[in-house]
Each structure stands twice: as structure tokens, then as C-alpha cells.
């Protein structure tokens, strides 16, 4: 099962995303931003980082890259796409998901272990979760405040497109505590927190039982593998 991970100039979490795919049982395929060949992968991850230095607007330049254009095209045909942090920003800039992301409410970059509620487990990337399951994965961003028009927010709520909501405090001022979204088809998911940093015991968030033992992020990648197998 091949899952592509796109590297843009300034991408940081590409190797982490590849590791997460490997640990979930998939085969990671490195993809290059300037190359519109997605190498026939079964799904794509747009990882976190500061593509193009966040110049212009976070994700705005990356949204124009040849590889992204191909992602947009194939997403329309149902290719599972996960955008994490900067990847979420790219999905929003690509109009695969609605709304926008602005500077954190408190103006500081924030890195913390964040509790989320899974609001929608009917997507390519969340089908292994229970509905309303509470999970803990790292969050790290400077521009993670989700904004959208009232109309869009209503549509997101009504159509159950909000995939994750922040619990125990909103870390960046996101409207409606939105941490992540999906599209109507459920193949495209974007979120600010980082599932790829909670996949391996010893290197994830602290849990009640042991230091850095949280691996709630693994199910994102297992979900897509399971879906592709079943497809």
C-alpha cells in the first residue's frame, strides 16, 4: 500500500509522516513538489512545516506547486489526502477545504499536547476511531486559528464536516473550536495538530500511564490503509 508524502522547500515533518506510514504498515513514497508525477500512490499526505517560509500566506505558494495541482485533480476523483498543519493550510489555500488559518490568538507559536474529540469517524483518515473518541496528539503552530464566514461555519456544522474539535481549551482561537475538517466526500482531511508525532511509544505525548507513550496518531494512517484495502 503506497502512501505519498510531498516535500516542498521548507517542509519539516516529511520524514515523520513517512515513519508514521511505515509504523502503520504502509509504504511511504517520497514525492517532490516540482514533480507532477504522484507515482501512482494510493493516498497522499501533505506534511507540516513552513513551505516557502510561509511567505505571502501560509500554504499559498505551495498550493500552486505542480505536485499540489495533481493532488487537487486526483482528490476530485476520490484520492485520500491528509493535510497536517502546513498541509492543512495548503489544502485550504487549494480550496479543497473551506475557510482560512490565521495567527494564533495569543500571537505566540504554541507546542503542546492537545486533547481532541473525533467528531466525524466516517472519513478516509478517521474510520478507525470511535465517534466522539477523545484523543491526545501534539499541536505545534503559529498560525492555526481557523476562521470562516458564518455561512461556511453553519454548512460545516450542518453537514458534519468538522472532523476534530479542541478539548480542554482552545489553543489558537479557532472558531467553533475547530481543529480539523473533511470534505463532503470524506477523502480529504486537514487538521492543525500532528498525528505523525504520536505514533511510536517513547516519542509521543505523555499519557497517564507512561512518559511519551501516546500513539493516538497511528489510527489516522491505519484508517486510510484499511480503507484502501477494503476498496
Amino acid at each position, binding site marked *: 500500500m503506497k502512501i505519498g508524502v510531498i516535500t516542498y*522547500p521548507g517542509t519539516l515533518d516529511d520524514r515523520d509522516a513517512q515513519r508514521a506510514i511505515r509504523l502503520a504498515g504502509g509504504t511511504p513514497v517520497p514525492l517532490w513538489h516540482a514533480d507532477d508525477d504522484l507515482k501512482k500512490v494510493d493516498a497522499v499526505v501533505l506534511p507540516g512545516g513552513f513551505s516557502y517560509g510561509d511567505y505571502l500566506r501560509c500554504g499559498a505558494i505551495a498550493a500552486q506547486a505542480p505536485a499540489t495541482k495533481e493532488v487537487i485533480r486526483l482528490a476530485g476523483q476520490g484520492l485520500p489526502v491528509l493535510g497536517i498543519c502546513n498541509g492543512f493550510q495548503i489544502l485550504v489555500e487549494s480550496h479543497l477545504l473551506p475557510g482560512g488559518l490565521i495567527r494564533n490568538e495569543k500571537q505566540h507559536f504554541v507546542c503542546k499536547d492537545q486533547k481532541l474529540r473525533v467528531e466525524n469517524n466516517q472519513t478516509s483518515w478517521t474510520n478507525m476511531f470511535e465517534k466522539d473518541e477523545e484523543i491526545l496528539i501534539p499541536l505545534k503552530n503559529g498560525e492555526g486559528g481557523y476562521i470562516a464566514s458564518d455561512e461556511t461555519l453553519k454548512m460545516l456544522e450542518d453537514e458534519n464536516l468538522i472532523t476534530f474539535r479542541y478539548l480542554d481549551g482552545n489553543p489558537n482561537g479557532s472558531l467553533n473550536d475547530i481543529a480539523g475538517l473533511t470534505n463532503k466526500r470524506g477523502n480529504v482531511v486537514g487538521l492543525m495538530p500532528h498525528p505523525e508525532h504520536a505514533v511510536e511509544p517513547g516519542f509521543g505525548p505523555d499519557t497517564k500511564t507512561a512518559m511519551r507513550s501516546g500513539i493516538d496518531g497511528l489510527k489516522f494512517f491505519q484508517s486510510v490503509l484499511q480503507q484502501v484495502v477494503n476498496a
Partner: protein
Amino acid sequence: MLGKKKLEPSGVDTTAMATTEPEKEQPWQELGLKQDEYAEIKNILGRRPTSSELAMYSVMWSEHCSYKSSKIYLRQFGEKVTPEMKKYLMVGMGENAGVVDIGEGLAVTFKVESHNHPSYIEPFQGAATGVGGIVRDILSMGARPIAVMDQLRFGAPTNPDTARVVHGVVDGISFYGNCLGLPNIGGETVFDSVYQGNPLVNALSIGSMKHEDLQLAKASNPGDLVILFGARTGADGIGGVSVLASETFESTGPTKRPAVQVGDPFAEKVLIECCLELFNSGVVAGIQDLGGAGISCATSELASNGGKGMRVQLKNVLLRDESLTPEEILMSESQERMCAVVPKKKLKEFEKIVQKWEVEYSVLGDVIDEDRLYIKWGHEEIVNVPPRTVAHDGPIYERPVKLPKYQKALNKDSSSGLARAKNASELASQLMELIATPNQADKSWITAQYDKYVGGNTALSMPDDSGMIRVSEESGLGVALATDANGKYSYLNPYEGARLALAEAYRNVAVTGALPRAVTNCLNFGSPENPEVMWQFKEATAGLADACLELGIPVTGGNVSFYNQSGDIAIYPTPVVGVLGVIDDVARRIPSGWQDDGNNIYLLGETFDELDGSAWAKDLHDHLGGQPPKLDLAKEKLLAELLHGASIQGLIESAHDLSEGGLGIAVLEASLRFNVGARIWLGDILDRDQIDQTAALFSESQSRVLVTVGREDDVKFQALCEARGVPCLRIGVTDSTSGLVEIKDVADLKLEDIRTSWSGVMSELFG
């Protein structure tokens, strides 16, 4: 061709003019050179320098680049070593960073460097480019940078200027480090009014590589091309090292802000990936990063290190600002630039890789088999010097040293006269007061602004005692890193202060289960032109070198920052010492806090009545005097060996070192880490060590560690301590249900209350 076009002179000062106009007035003084240094340059060249040569010599002979006041003392780090200590040392001092063998064919390189002066003038850019600079040092050894740490000293927290510096520095480190994708795994933050006009911003980076990937900064093959790549050269940071880092601040005079460099972490991130691909493809024969002194440094050092010469066409430098003069180009400290030496036949391959990463480059010249650095500006020669005289044979000073006038009185003024708590409730309120002082309080307001996760290999980070990074995903092999410096101790006794800094960093590595292997340092001091400061420096370097020899771990490199002084007020001598440890499998690492219920809590080591220079004396009584705690390094070594042994046998559930604030603070920190309380009794300590409760809670006696042991391992653990001769006393039991830290005969403290006092301090001060 219609015949040779006559070349017009451009007006720049050429080597020809230096001979024909020997008496020309030159601004050597403004560039920071002393009269005898200027005379020496003329002596070397047999004529006056051109203005470009003068620019080069002035930056390269600055204190920052030449180590002219410190060199005679730094030699000890290379001399006080045994062959055994060099066993793991692949590259020692003098290169961009030291390289240490960690086994399995892998090596790490690490170094800490100061960016103090720029960070006071322009805190954001100063701190940001401090991170950028040290990361390029690590990269230029051929390593992939894998983590950063920072060591910060700020003025009094309530002084309004402190907030300006704190916000700027933390934002700068966060901005640059996060954008580079390097986890920030630890550091130090200390507040003291002595740093008010001279905050310290030290940045550490570590990188990993395979043994065979090692790169060196040298140009040794004539014919190879010299290529500058990365960002374009601009007017930023001109004379940074000579203007900023090599003299004290005066309150009057023009602003020095333009001398601070401006950073672009995106450019650096791309440069890192580009360089690693260049190294991998084997197209680079030598590499040097551009930091202080820019092109002057890179060209002269590459040539000097390779024992060869170089021809450079300065007009080939890609500029951000076309109006720059050749002197400015030579001195510019524009960031995110590297200089590579590339064999001619590899040029095509080189170009392919840099173009892939969309990095700009230009060929400046080539390596020649002659002991000469020639630099041309178009058709005119503006530099013609022996490279070694610029890069390595700068002046060396043996500056006068003098015991400070205040020293005797300071050492006599012990803390023994300070009032101690008269009863249990006073003692308890002192402990609660101390945990809420800015120096002991929760620093997550700072550390939460740093990405600690990126890379997926962070095994420990703040607030644990060391940072720890996995280097091999296959085997789990990793490294632990801790840095420490107690400026108060060093002020009381610089020799002991440096030893104590090493001991604490060593202990912080040992408590994680790693074995200490190598040392780096960043020596922050006042003006070397002040004999009293020079005495402190002499003492501190001797103390550190002696202590390294005693512990058997070598100094691999470091940095000196002088002139941390405003007017007559110098900072405390602050020798930041970093210790690197190796752990065969990071899965074995020991947490610093308590997680389980019912574990026995042991205090390892003895407690003496040592409150001089302590947090209790300084932060609760505003007293600093006497002598710092005694240090027996043989005990420290024994303790580290015990911890390593116990960790291998899996006997220890947690280990936390005792340092500032003593046992009292260590107990609270171990509790706060995972929100697990404890019942503690001090009675046995008082009996065995013949001290009172104040000393038991607040003494800063060395070589002590708090460990917890599961009941099933109790007998084994005690036997191990006895066999190794490490004093071991059971002083309590962890309790995960009470929500209390009960200190028998003192107080029952609610964990919730402790957390509230401890965690709110920084955000209250800085928003």
C-alpha cells in the same frame, strides 16, 4: 578585436596604491585595531594594507574571531587530556565543531556559541541568527543538525527592559529553530539584575552523521573551485564581530543596530537540505559556513587550513545591494551563506544539485599552490596576503590578571548569619516562596513556544534534566545533552564555579541513564581589558580543564564571549558547560519525575550545611557571599556509574538531580512532572548528616540525586549502592492518590497549590 581597451581605475584602494601612496591615513582605530596591531599588519605585508586588507585583518583579528585574549588559556583544554580521553574524539578543538564517535559507525558533532551582544541590541534577530549560525557550524562538519538548545540569562524580571529582551529573544529562537525543523530539547533561563545591560543568549546545536561523512573546512587541492552559495550578500551585519562582540557598550554614540544580522530560516532550511545532498554526492572537497567576518573568514580559513592559497574575484559575489564596496562585501555577515571547495570536474554535478534546491551560487575563484590569498575587484588587485596571517596567526595577548578587590570580603561574607526559619510553617512558606521565584518557576511559557517534536526522535526534553535524541532508529542508540552554569558560584569562586558547572551538566546527563562522553563550553565574561575579569577567566578555564581531566571527558570545542560589560559592571563570570552523553538505547532513559504509586524515594549523596550562593540565600534573602558548595569529582563519577548500572538493570523508575534550591525544590519538581505526590521525611537526613531542616531542604551540596525505586527492586538497589559506596537514604514514598506533598514535621502541601504558584509566574511577568 580593435585592440586592447584601456582599463580605467575604479577608485578602490589597490595593492598598487598601497605602495605608491604609503602614507595614506587609515581608519584602523575605528575598525577596532590597536596601534601595535596595525603596525604588525604593515610589518607582515611590508607596506600599508589596502582598505580591503585592513577590513579583513580588523574582523579576523577581533577578539571574537581571533581569541587573542583567551587563546593562552584555551590551550589547556587540549593539553590536560589523557590518551583515554581522546578515544572517542574524531575532531577536536579548532574546527567548526568537535566530532565525537558514539559507536555503530555513527558520530555526533555539537557546539554552543554566544550571540549576546546582537541579542541585546535587536533581541529577535540577534537570537534568531544565533541559532542560524550555530546550526551552520554543525552542518559544515558534514552532519545533519538534529536538535538545538539555548542558554539564556536576562536582567531583573521586573525591569521593563527585560520584557523587551525576553519577548524578542524567545520569539527569535522560536521563529528560527521551528522553521528549521529542529526540536528544541532543553536549555536554561536565569534572571539576575547583573545581566540587565548584558543579557546572554547562547545557542547550542547538535548534528549526527556516519563516520565517513565528515567534512572539513579546507582548500587543499590546487585547481579546485571556490564557490559561494546560499543567500546573497547584503549590508547586514557589517563589522558585527569587531563592532559588537569585541568592545563594551557605551550609553552614548550612534546606534549599532545595522551591525546586527537579519535571518531567513527558510533560506537556511533549504541550504541544509542542499548541503546534505552535496555531501552525499561527494562533490564537495571542503566546506565552510559564513558567520562572523563573512567572506574574509571563509576564504582565509579555507586556504590556511589547507596550507594553500586562493585567487578570488570579488565582483563575482552575488549582491543584494549593488552599492556595496569591496570592503563591505568582505566584512558582511549576511546569513545563510556557505563556501564550498569543489573539484572542477564536479562542477556540473554541483550545479545540478543547487539548482534543484533553487539555491543561488557563484564561482569566486580557485585554489592555488601558493601561500597567498589574492582578491581582485575587476581588474584591480585589492588583497594580496598570506592567508595564515589573517586566519590563524593573529595577535595573542597575555593580559594582566588581578584578584578582584572585592574578592576577599565577598568570600568572607558567608550566609551563616542569615535568619533561618524558626518553625515549620515558616519553613514551608519559604519553600513555597522559592518555587514561585522566576528562577525556579515553570519555564513552559518559554519552552511551549519551541517545537520539541519535529523529527520524531526526541526522547527527553524540557523539563527533564537533559535533552535526549535518538540517533539510530534501528538500534535506539542516542545521545543526552545538558548544559549548566551557575554564575553566582562562579562569581564567588570562578575556579570552583566552572568545575561545578561541569559537575551539574555531567550529573544531569547521568540521571537519564546515559554515560557522559564529551564537553563543549561557552565562556561568557566581562572585558578582558579589566585584569579582574581576566583573573576570573584564568581561574574558570583552569577549573574546567582540571575537572574535565578528573572526570575523563574531553572538551571538543567551544566559544568565548568577552565584553559582556556595561560601564564598570561586568556580568557574573558565566562559563556555560555542555555535556554530551551516550545511551545505547533511548528506550532505557529515566524520567525526572515520579509516575507510579508507592515507589520508595531515595536521596543519594550527603548533605552539608552549604547555603552560600544558594537560591535560598540569593532569592529569599538577597544575599550573595561566601564560598560555593564543595565538590568532590570522585563522588560525582561514582554516582554516575551507579546510575548507569542501576539503569541497565532497570532498577530506577525516576532520577532527578539536586541543584539550585536543593532537596526542597527537587522534591517539588519531581512531583510536578507527572502530578504525583509523596510522603517525605527529613529526620534521617538530619541525624545522619548533622544538619538542620533549613540545610536539609535548601542546601546545594553537590553529587546528590533523588531516585525512586519500585518495591520489588528495593533490596537489589540498596545492595548496589552499598557495593559502590554511594550514600543512600530512604526519605519517602510516592503517592499518586493524595494530591499532596507531605513533608513530615514541616507541612502538607497541596500539589494543586504548588502548581498554581509555580506555573503562573512567567505568564504574569511577560504576558
